[in-house]
């Protein structure tokens, strides 16, 4: 083998090995906690949750500059990336025929029924005490799996208004839940 090519091959191999090592480290550090959170939003679908975690880790690796952030920000970003992947997956699934995934599955797989019902009540109460404008945009976007633009069309208001109301509504909800000792 030509020594120059051999040298280059060696460098490529070590770059691959380094990438693999970095991905393994990311898995070790974030894989477990991410999986626990993601499973909640996949209705305990473990296979789906594992795929989501894998994709999240790969995206983190591709955006390694963000891994220089402080740990709480890295974690917030990773959770947001993972949630987005779940939401995109759910949107794709919802255009498939219903028999692929009956809607009951999500609800039947929910553990700790009474405890969760209680937190659901607290969150519902907090939501009810928001102004109509704020509650409406939270309901029409996140709670109904709709984007800002889709909700804007349904509500007949500009997307920028939905985005801004969502911001103030979410901040208000966060304050309410923090007062009730729900938020961490």
């Amino acid at each position, binding site marked *: 083998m030509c020594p120059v090519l051999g040298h280059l091959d060696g460098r490529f191999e070590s770059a691959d090995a380094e990438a693999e090592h970095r991905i393994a480290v990311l898995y070790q550090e974030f894989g477990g906690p991410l999986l626990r959170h993601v499973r*909640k939003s996949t209705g305990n679908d473990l296979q789906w949750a594992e795929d989501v975690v894998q994709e999240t880790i790969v995206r983190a690796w591709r955006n390694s500059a963000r891994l220089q952030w402080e740990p709480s920000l890295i*974690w917030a970003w990773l959770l947001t990336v993972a949630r*987005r992947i779940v939401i995109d997956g759910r949107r794709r699934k919802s255009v498939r025929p219903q028999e692929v995934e009956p809607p009951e599955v999500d609800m039947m797989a*929910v553990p700790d029924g009474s405890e969760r019902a209680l937190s659901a009540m607290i969150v519902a109460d907090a939501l009810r005490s928001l102004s109509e404008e704020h509650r409406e945009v939270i309901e029409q976007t*996140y709670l109904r799996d709709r984007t*800002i*633009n889709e909700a804007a069309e349904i509500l007949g208001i500009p997307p920028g208004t939905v985005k801004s109301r969502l911001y103030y509504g979410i901040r208000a909800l966060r304050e309410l839940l923090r007062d009730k000792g729900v938020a961490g």
Partner: protein
Amino acid sequence: MHDGVAAYVLGVLDEDEHEAFERHLDTCERCQAELIELVELPEQLDELKNAPSASDDDPPMSMSR
């Protein structure tokens, strides 16, 4: 741009806006701090989505009343 942090954390931005906000996040300390504050909220809202009463015929909120 800053008010996009709520839509971003909830994952309700269109893909191009989502990516644009992520680039904004790279340099905006205010949004970075707010992301950390808001990151648990979607899971709390999920409690509502997953609760047994949260079906289409019986929304837990006041919209249909």
